[in-house]
């Protein structure tokens, strides 16, 4: 099975199992809503009785924000202009590439860990559902699979954290410092920028390789019933190393789709000016569509990678199995 077919079939599998992205989206909402309510209260206590609320209704009051940010701590410190437009995407991408995803307020970090655990819980059922549909077709079967693989994925999650930490500690940081030293006498910003972007590219590639290895490790855990997170990671890494072109090629296709989704969001970005309910709801829905599409993309990539794994790991028979049509959406209870 070539990667284009994996790409296409993977899409079909997720498309026909809409409950899967739905569960992840629900997890995202479940984690986000309590904190959003808390943030709403923080904002209420700041400008709830003031005329500033009128400015904030029409747009963003930078003068108010100057006062707010001066005293904001904890969760409040995460609010600012960086929640507007494409800034969240740029800020979070920067955090990812700089290894700063955990350098946030502890409440947000706790929410993040909760979300990761939710992912770890759902991943088993999702992969099983996308690969061996028979075992997780019903809601009970789906959650049974989720529970069955949960602790394995938690161990894998812990291993991934350690590996990402090491990557930033021993590769990203030293590389950036090396560039800083190397460009000490450089007087052309473009040169320094090129070197820095080169480091980001290297770090990004390593992140992708690590991410791919963990994706295939998850798939191997389910399909090969592996219990050891370390051995599963080694299996995932070996799979990547033995099929670098196909795995990276497939990943590249998702990268393009991801870039298109981000581009679409940026183009449809409603900005800060919504002053009516309809505009506000539309802006909210645009954001939620983006979130849902990102989740869909993640599952789509898992489905396609699983197909590739099955096809490459088991030869023509497995490929033939993989070509079997998945159940129709009416059969999907999960």
């Amino acid at each position, binding site marked *: 099975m070539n990667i284009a077919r994996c790409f296409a079939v993977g899409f079909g599998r997720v498309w026909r199992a809409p409950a899967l992205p739905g569960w992840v989206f629900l997890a995202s909402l479940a984690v986000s809503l309590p904190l959003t309510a808390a943030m709403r209260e923080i904002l209420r206590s700041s400008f709830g009785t003031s005329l500033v609320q009128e400015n904030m209704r029409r747009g963003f009051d930078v003068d108010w924000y100057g006062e707010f940010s001066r005293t904001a701590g904890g969760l409040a410190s995460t609010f600012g*202009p960086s929640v507007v437009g494409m800034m969240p995407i*740029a800020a979070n991408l920067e955090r990812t590439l700089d290894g700063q*995803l955990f350098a946030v307020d502890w409440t947000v970090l706790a929410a993040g860990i909760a979300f*990761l655990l939710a992912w770890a819980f759902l991943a088993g059922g999702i992969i099983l559902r996308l690969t061996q549909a028979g075992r997780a077709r019903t809601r009970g079967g789906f959650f049974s699979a989720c529970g069955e693989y949960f602790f394995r994925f938690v161990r894998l999650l812990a291993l991934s954290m350690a590996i990402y930490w090491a990557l930033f500690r021993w590769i990203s940081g030293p590389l950036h410092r090396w560039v800083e030293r190397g460009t000490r006498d450089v007087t052309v910003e473009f040169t320094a920028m090129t070197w820095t972007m080169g480091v980001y590219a290297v770090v990004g590639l390593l992140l992708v390789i690590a991410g791919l290895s963990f994706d295939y490790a998850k798939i191997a855990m389910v399909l090969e019933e592996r219990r050891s997170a370390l051995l599963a990671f080694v299996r995932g890494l070996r799979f990547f190393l033995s099929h670098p072109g196909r795995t990276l090629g497939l990943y590249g296709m998702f990268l393009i789709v991801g870039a298109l989704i981000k581009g679409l969001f940026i183009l449809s970005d409603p900005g800060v000016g919504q002053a009516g309910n309809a505009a506000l709801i539309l802006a909210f829905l645009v954001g939620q569509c*983006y979130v849902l599409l990102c989740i869909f993309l993640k599952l789509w990539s898992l489905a396609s990678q699983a197909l590739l794994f099955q096809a490459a790991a088991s030869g023509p028979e497995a490929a033939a199995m993989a070509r079997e049509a998945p159940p129709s959406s009416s059969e999907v209870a999960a």
Partner: protein
Amino acid sequence: MNPAGTRPTALFAFLSLAFTAAGSAAQEPERLSARNANYTIEVRLDAKLKTLEGREVVEWRNDTEVPARELWFHLYWNAWKNDRSTWMREAALRGRGRRGEDIRDEDWSYCRIGSIKVLPAGGFTGAELTESLRFVSPDDGNPDDRTVAVVPLLQPVGPHETVQVEIGWQSKIPRTFSRTGFRGNFFFVAQWFPKLGVYQPDGNWNCHQFHAGTEFFSDYGVYDVKMTVPRGWILGATGLPIEVADNPDGTATHHYRQADVHDFAWTTSPDYLEAVKVFEHPGLKPVRMRLLYQPEHRGQEARHFAATEAALRCYGTWFGEYPYGHITIVDPAWGSGAGGMEYPTLFTCGTRYFNPAGGGSPEGVTVHEAGHQFWYAMVGNNEFEHAWLDEGLNTFSTERAMEATFGESSLVRRFFRGYFPVMVRDIRLHRMTTENGLDAYRPAARSDVQATPSFRYYPATGGALSYNKTALWLSMMEKSLGWDTLQKILSTFFRRWKFRHPAPDDFFAVAREVSGADLDRFFDEVYYKAAVFDYAVESVSSEEVRLRGYTDEKGEPVLARDGREGGKRFRSRVVVRRLQDGSLPVEVLLKFENGEELRELWDGLGLWKIYEVERPARLAYAVVDPERKILLDIDYTNNSRLVNPRPGFALSKWASKWMFWLQDYLNALAFLM
């Protein structure tokens, strides 16, 4: 303007020199300043060793009535001789700038006087003084500081006498500290020569050590400077070129001259591109603008010129004419740390490879540094002691010129180590608050009294006090007195004090005189105290008036039935408070639901005041300082209060946007899973 942006051709060089000759000939007869400190300097740059070898003749006239028995010199580059200098110690205290571990051996600098002698001229006998040179530390007594040198004179310089002193010196150029130095083959050379302090009428030299948080002070004069640099390198300097002569050793000597300035800076690099444009505006003298810019900033020439023109036009029409007829705009090399600094007839700005239009950069820094030609270069206050007089006036003027020319800037955040900007067009920065630096002032509000000599400010708060606080209280004056009055104050101050050395009281005197207002309390609060302003509406209420008990009906006491007398009436109560010690008269606005407004002036002396009124409509909200005249108020959110707040929409809007950020963050995290 040279649209191709190439290096100067022979024709351009010829035109430049022709312009120069005409310019210098024209400016010399008109004496704009006292010209009592004149420098003739020859200096040679060794671009490989990063050294300067120089010789200067200082011609100094004692303009006081007290004989001078010593000469005091600044040797600024000794501030980076080692880590024991006052500058380095203060920089460490400030927690800013380059830290010890970032500094390599090649980065340090020095300025060593090899010889100093009085020349036999003007009634003075020639005398060798090198051996008697000593270092002093008048500000902090730091025995390791070498930024001020004193040489006793064998023959005092009497009132209105002129002495000529010849100095030979060698310098090691620093890797840029405080906007002067080198990076690669880029050199920005400022505060680079032994320079006299300012002799005061009380018989003392005003010659401060170099401090990390403040700048400079010196007398006006004529600078005639020959700089020898590698042949083919582009050079820009204070003043105008007289000639460029090629030397047999592969170098070229650039001869520049400028009268009526108090400093001289220059820059050279083989990489500069050059563009020229003439500024013209009715009623103002044309100015030849020369832009030295980095090749990677090709395409941004027009933005630099537009910003410089904005400064020349706005400042020129508001305060007074720029008299020199030429100005050099320097776009420094990336990472050089030389950007955003002013020198007479030359300034550095600074831009980036990606710089979205509308984000205020490089326009803001360009207008600011060009504006320093007025506040600093022409009105030559003592920056060591009263930095606010130039930085504050200039920050205020910059933001006003920016708004008048380019409108409000949009918010820009830079990502990926600053290389990629993201601009949110619909988040605008307001001149009088954000752009004047209210956010920077707020945490420093209590840090020090503005009247304190600037070099003694609490570490790292000089910027907030000198730049931002002044700009904010000048904006308060603009709101209270009106722009016309403030403009007259500033133009009168400019006219009276250009090419002289004003002190704070000179500004206050002009402000009082021109405005005709009693500004004592104002200046007392904003300048002579570290007063913090925070007015607030503590509570609001509005209830229908209902009478309980008896009322008179046809002369008889009758129990009130529905509690109403006549039509509906509402009693509204507003409590306003002064939460901090800063106190100025302030207006209180009560706005009723029927659109009626009630404005009251509160003297702001007490800690609180209660307003209780009866009106036919309910109170909608109350605001203390509705026009936001007290821009130093550190919390304006609490200045207003609604009787029936309905913030639901705004809260939902911003909470949902924050939620999107959080969900995107969660998705980014999931990448790791």
